[in-house]
């Protein structure tokens, strides 16, 4: 990691300015408050300076406890702003508009303890939102108690730099004086500093290293403070490699004030495992969780560079501000270089509520194809067709299943995407078809940097059509990436997205077949010779949008266009699979993401878990880290541990840099091959469970992999535990992150007990257990009271498992009851949207297991069915020692015997097993234990 190559806050004028301001009562007031189009509108003015143009504000409420706040320049002001500020399109899902609540009347009154009136906006039965007029402040509160949940500008740090016309040099001096319009006068000292800063002519240009940013509209940043009440910790705002619960960055009690959390999509070479520094993606969504309120969230839809401080208690001690709350509170400072305020407040109060609320704005994760939820084998690079064939054959030889083989950049003809290096890959279709015959898929990489080569069809067409991002002078932007001199399609433009999508048709992408899917890398975008290895901020996009305004969402549009392409390719019948590195809020709708170029070190294995938890919490459910670590050579022990954890990542892919030694699973001796095979088998065994969880995420936004507190919201011991995680609501996994470990302490939450996933051994909940650790596996447990569907036969790939029979593992709780779900569809198409799926609920109570239908049964929907049966039912924690089971539908009795919990590790001790009940998974049935 090259620290000096990236800007820190001090080198970033807007960040430095915002950070240097001190909290104080705001000089801003809300005026002209009224209702319009079912929402509250108002103007924000500075009571100390009437020269400053007012801003317009709107507050709207949406179903399920969501408040939306917008603040922008007033287009009707005189003179009008030089241009419209960028509002991020295509991130808020269209359905969200229909959830708007039409406000009927304006409720304005002076609340207790205030000296000025406030306007109150209805949110739901329990919560409302308050706009305090003077000083300007917005908060969400609990109606009955009046207690605050989230507030904005309680510390008076709101600032909004308005766009200016670039004037001739001589006029610039004057301009400077009326610039800091939304700062408070009593911040004299800091203001001095800020002024000094500006004297360096930085209004109109900004330099970083050898790059100059022309900044034609002057500074245009926005900043404000947000407070979370009843919060013990805040989480979210990925992507970065650091702890899950966000450590404070500033305030008393911190020895070293750190950098703020940065949200700026960058290709960071060899990133370090613990830093607030932002990586490849940006999701400006923060979640707070605490014992007293529960969970709440704040999302700022803004794609410019953002910096966020998490402040320690007492940072505002000198401000004279005392917020009306005796509960724990976490204050944060949000700063963005450009854009508008378009912010969403989510009231919770349960963790899953916040996630549902957030994904109702940005969309729920796409439903992946079944194959994509299985194991992926990748390397930079599988060199040629022979290499591909050998690797594929070796998986079979070693009886290790895998579903997807990946080709990195070297498969192309000179890094020209959509082409093949014909010397290495003379028969791409045949190669794909060979794998497809075994039910396997391939993925090729397609990056946005397009080689500037007149003989390259893609470049020719993009140039002719004017589809590239432009530089500040209006010429096609020319930057350096893998192919050398490159340009970048401007996928902000829907027309260009549509054109890009068409590149993926079988006709246009020569050598592609229906079993080929896509990987988008370098879409931050990575520009090797650009400032901070990315595109200059003054580059221009469709509609005159400056790159600074949309930087963080560039990769999102590229990902979106690619996913659209795959959908178009299959005539809308085949679910796309596109892996992206760059992300923004809403990327979950387009495909999977991975955490980029990590390193083969234990600490990188450890940090992969909080990274995936943060992504899941902010909507990106389908994520994973490169198993084994991208850079460097993992010791076999690390590799094995990584597979053991990775088998539970939502996205499970091994990947490696081309300088590393080969590390396919069979290359480390028989024992390690066995251990890795075992880890991969665990994933395949649990595929029915995973697929059900993917569907849950698809319908509710609740991520596949969750923090413990999402399932146990009131257990404080779990709030900052990021070594363990939940897979769904039934499995708890604790990674092993150090070498040669013999013991590990694992906290098992809740009142119910837990069953070791492999042995069935019972552990009490609500306490920490010191466990013996072997190389065989990492600690993993099934929660009492749950039922997990499995498929225990290992095939070459998930494709061959489709008709295999199920095993149901019932982990009984203290009242001898349990329940679970299973979702099944065709694994490929969108027919599930029309009801073509099986969704069962299994309930075990009173000695009876019942399977009931959860899917709608209305006629006219398309249907999906399967002849798969249940071959085995395992009862964990059964006290009675039953001998037989009675199947009510067929009126047959079947044997109950003691069997192994895991077939391939079938060691002596037995668990109660119902042998061959033979019921169809798609049917309703009841089985009574006799």
């Amino acid at each position, binding site marked *: *990691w*090259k*620290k*000096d*190559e990236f800007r820190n806050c001090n080198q970033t004028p807007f960040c430095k300015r915002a950070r240097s301001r001190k909290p104080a009562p705001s000089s801003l007031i809300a005026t002209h408050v009224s209702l319009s189009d079912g929402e509250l509108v108002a103007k924000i003015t500075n009571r100390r300076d009437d020269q400053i143009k007012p801003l317009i504000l709107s507050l709207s409420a949406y179903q399920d406890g969501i408040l939306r706040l917008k603040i922008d320049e007033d287009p009707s002001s005189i003179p009008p702003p030089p241009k419209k500020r960028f509002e991020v399109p295509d991130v808020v899902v269209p359905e969200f508009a229909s959830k708007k609540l039409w406000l009927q009347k304006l409720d304005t009154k002076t609340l207790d303890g205030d000296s000025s009136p406030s306007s109150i906006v209805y949110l739901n039965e329990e919560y409302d939102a308050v706009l305090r007029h003077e000083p300007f402040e917005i908060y969400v509160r609990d109606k009955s108690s009046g207690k605050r949940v989230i507030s904005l500008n309680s510390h008076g740090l709101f600032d909004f730099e308005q766009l200016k016309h670039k004037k001739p040099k001589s006029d610039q001096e004057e301009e400077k004086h009326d610039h800091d319009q939304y700062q408070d006068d009593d911040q004299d000292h800091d203001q001095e500093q800020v002024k000094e800063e500006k004297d360096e002519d930085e209004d109109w240009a900004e330099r970083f*290293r*050898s790059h100059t940013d022309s900044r034609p509209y002057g500074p245009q940043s926005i900043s404000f403070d947000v407070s979370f009440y009843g919060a013990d910790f805040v989480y979210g705002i990925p992507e970065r490699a650091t702890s899950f619960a966000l450590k404070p960055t500033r305030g008393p009690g911190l020895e070293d004030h750190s950098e703020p959390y940065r949200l700026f999509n960058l290709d960071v*070479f*060899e990133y*370090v495992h613990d830093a607030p520094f932002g990586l490849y993606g940006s999701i400006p969504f923060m979640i707070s969780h605490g014992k007293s309120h529960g969970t709440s969230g704040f999302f700022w839809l803004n794609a410019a560079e953002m910096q966020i401080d998490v402040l320690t208690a007492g940072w505002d001690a000198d401000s004279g501000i005392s917020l009306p709350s005796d509960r724990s509170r976490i204050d944060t400072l949000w700063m963005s270089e450009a854009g508008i305020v378009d912010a969403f407040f989510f009231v919770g109060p349960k963790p899953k509520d916040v996630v549902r609320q957030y994904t109702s704005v940005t969309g729920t994760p796409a439903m992946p194809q079944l194959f994509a939820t299985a194991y992926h084998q990748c390397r930079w690079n599988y060199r040629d067709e022979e*290499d591909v064939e050998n690797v594929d054959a070796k998986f079979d030889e070693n*009886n290790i299943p895998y579903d997807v083989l990946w080709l990195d950049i070297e498969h192309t003809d000179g890094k020209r995407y959509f082409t093949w290096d014909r010397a290495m890959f003379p028969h791409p279709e045949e190669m794909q078809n060979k794998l497809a*015959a*075994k*039910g396997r898929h391939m993925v090729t990489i397609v990056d946005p940097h397009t080689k500037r080569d007149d003989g390259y069809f893609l470049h020719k067409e993009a140039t002719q059509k004017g589809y590239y991002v432009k530089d500040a002078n209006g010429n096609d932007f020319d*930057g*350096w*990436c*893998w192919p*050398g*001199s490159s340009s970048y399609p401007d996928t902000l433009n829907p027309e260009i997205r549509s054109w890009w999508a068409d590149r993926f048709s079988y006709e246009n992408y020569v050598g592609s077949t229906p079993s080929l899917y896509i990987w988008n890398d370098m879409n931050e975008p990575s*520009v*090797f*010779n650009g400032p901070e*290895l990315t595109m200059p901020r003054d580059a221009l996009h469709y509609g005159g949008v400056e790159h600074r305004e949309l930087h963080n969402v560039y990769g999102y549009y590229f990902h979106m266009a690619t996913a659209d392409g795959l959908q178009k390719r299959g005539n809308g019948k085949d679910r796309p699979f596109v892996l992206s590195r760059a992300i923004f809020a809403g990327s979950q709708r387009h495909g999977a993401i991975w955490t980029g170029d990590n390193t083969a070190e234990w600490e990188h294995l450890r940090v992969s878990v909080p990274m995936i938890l943060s992504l899941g919490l902010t909507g990106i459910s389908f994520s994973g880290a490169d198993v084994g670590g991208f850079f460097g*050579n993992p010791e076999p022990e690390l590799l094995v541990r990584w597979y053991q954890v990775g088998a539970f990542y939502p996205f499970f892919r091994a990947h490696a*840099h*081309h*300088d*590393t*030694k*080969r590390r396919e699973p069979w290359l480390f001796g028989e024992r390690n091959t066995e251990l890795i095979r075992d880890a991969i*088998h665990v994933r395949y065994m649990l595929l029915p469970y995973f697929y059900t969880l993917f569907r849950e995420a698809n319908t509710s936004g609740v991520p596949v992999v969750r923090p413990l507190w999402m399932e146990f919201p009131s257990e404080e011991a779990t709030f900052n535990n990021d070594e363990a995680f939940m897979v769904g609501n039934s499995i708890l996994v604790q990674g092993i992150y150090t070498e040669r470990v013999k013991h590990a302490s694992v906290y098992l939450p809740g009142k119910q007990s837990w069953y070791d996933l492999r042995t069935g051994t019972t552990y009490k909940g609500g306490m920490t257990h010191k466990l013996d650790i072997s190389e065989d596996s990492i600690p993993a447990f099934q929660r009492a009271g749950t039922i997990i569907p499995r498929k*225990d*036969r*290992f*095939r*070459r790939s998930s494709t*061959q498992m489709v*008709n*295999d*029979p199920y095993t149901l593992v019932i982990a009984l709780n203290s009242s001898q009851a349990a329940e679970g779900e299973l979702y099944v569809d065709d694994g490929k198409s969108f027919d599930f949207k029309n009801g073509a799926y099986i969704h069962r609920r299994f309930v075990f109570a009173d000695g009876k297991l019942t399977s009931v239908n959860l899917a709608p049964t209305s006629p006219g929907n398309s249907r999906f069915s399967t*002849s*798969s*049966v249940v*071959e*085995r039912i395992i009862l964990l924690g059964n006290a009675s020692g039953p001998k037989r089971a009675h199947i009510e539908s067929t009126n047959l009795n079947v044997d109950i015997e003691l069997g*192994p919990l895991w*077939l*391939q590790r*079938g*060691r*002596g001790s037995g668990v109660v097993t119902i*042998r*061959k009940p033979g019921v169809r998974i798609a049917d309703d049935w009841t089985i009574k234990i006799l």
Partner: protein
Amino acid sequence: SSSPLKHPLLGIAPEDEKYYKTSSDWIKCKDGSKKFSKTQLNDDFCDCPDGTDEPGTSACPLGKFYCRNSGHTPLFLYSSRVNDGICDCCDGSDEYDGKVKCPNTCWEAGKVARDKLKKKIATYQEGVTLRKQDVEQAKLSLAKDEAELLKLKDEEKILKVLVEQLKERKDEIEKAEEKERLRKEKEEKERKEAEEKANQEKSKTEKEANQGTSEAEEKTNNEEKPIESMHVDDIGTLEDSSADQDVVTENDESEAEVEYSDDSGNEGSLVDGVEQHAAEAKEESAVIPETVHDSESKGSDASEKTEGLSKEELGRLVASRWTGENAEKQTEEVDAANDKDHGGHEEMHKATHDEEDDGYASETDDDNQRYEDEDMEDEVDEDFREEDHYDSGSYKSDSDAEPDLSDITTPSNPSWLEKIQKTVQNVLRAVNIFQTPVNQTEAASVRKEYDDSSAKLSKLQSRISSLSQKLKQDFGPDKEFYSFYDRCFESKQNKYVYKVCPYKQASQEESHTTTRLGRWDKFEDSYRVMMFSNGDKCWNGPDRSLKVRLRCGLKNEVADVDEPSRCEYVALLSTPALCLEEKLKELQHKLELMNKEQPQSHDEL
């Protein structure tokens, strides 16, 4: 879903059927863990953890399915392949649930396989004969080598005595000369000066003593003490041998190319030198910002440096962090700067991508050896014009890798030693050391004789050492790899020539660049693999290594050199040495079995 099995014993090998056909109603799991009833055999539910009860279904993860494949070869499949929709057995018996139809292809496939097997057998048959011949030849040659070694050791003893005598005489002469010189000086100079001279004389004597023993390891010595030995030459014997002059040039050469540290010995010194060189190059390139990926580069000066770069240079520089390619371009510049004499290198660096600095270093290495060899041959030409010891006609002798010392002594001409003995005796007799001043002609002849004899001695010792070195090698259980010694096998692939020299090293050559893929390490996998390891270092990767798989073939030929993992090469070498009789029998047996299966119908199951 389970489908009725066509046959209760499906998936069981014929030799295993009796295990299942017991009279009892219960069958034991083979691992002894449980037993199961006959109705549970192949009932699509796994009862035995080891899969004993489900040979014909996919129910047990550890099960194996047997397909008979009449007309071809029987096969055991992982049970996971049963009814998975993919035809694995050529008789189609693994897919019986009706979801796919698998045609029986055993007959055709079997024929192809049999033909292939027949061909292989033919190769083996011929190969086995060749191998026998080689083994015989190897045994003879080895005996010869051993005999020669014994003889050489005897000769060494005699020659050592002679050299000792000559040295004594030489020392006496020099002492006498010195005495006389001192006496003369005394007359002219002060005593203090004279004492100094005495000291100098003392040190000179020591040096010469060193020289005597160390010539056996010419290379080492030359590298170790280039300056000193030149110095000695200056003061001492002016009419020195050509060998010493070569030493001087060689030193010049090596100094220009590689800055050796002088504390390492022998071959090792080359390696160390190279590594040090590489390390230096790296250090230097690290100073240039951002070339070598260095997570702790210093902020300010790094940014200053990149500002001087053009946009394209910056782009390349950053790309190189991931690829390493450009960083080597930097290294190349450093090399070029260090090494202005070698105009050819620049071009060579451009030609390859990753191997520059390594390739460069190993060329240096080769050069050194070549000088040494030429040097050796020159001398050999002067003194011994005898027939070659080795029958190099049939072998491709690799003179670059190892000096050919064969001509120093020849068993067929034992008289050379006697000749020397006689000459020495004459010389010794002739010189009258008590005569003052010493007769210059006589003194010179003693010196010359001493130099000649000790040079011969060192060559003799060098030959002894190389012969012992050779005899120490592992030539395989039947000495079948004896002929690989002193041989190299080449394979040209695209722009590269791969050179595999067993017991020595393996390299990859491209025009003027040589990259060492590895030094000889050992045989592995019961003499089926030759390992070369610790080759030139890879940028950001491991040391290069080469694994040569051996297979039976009629000629010694390298083929299919590949780099499956970065800097880890594999190659295939066919050789009669691998054509083992047991294996031939095995193959013949296999063919018999296949032929036996042929006439049977394949629909039996």
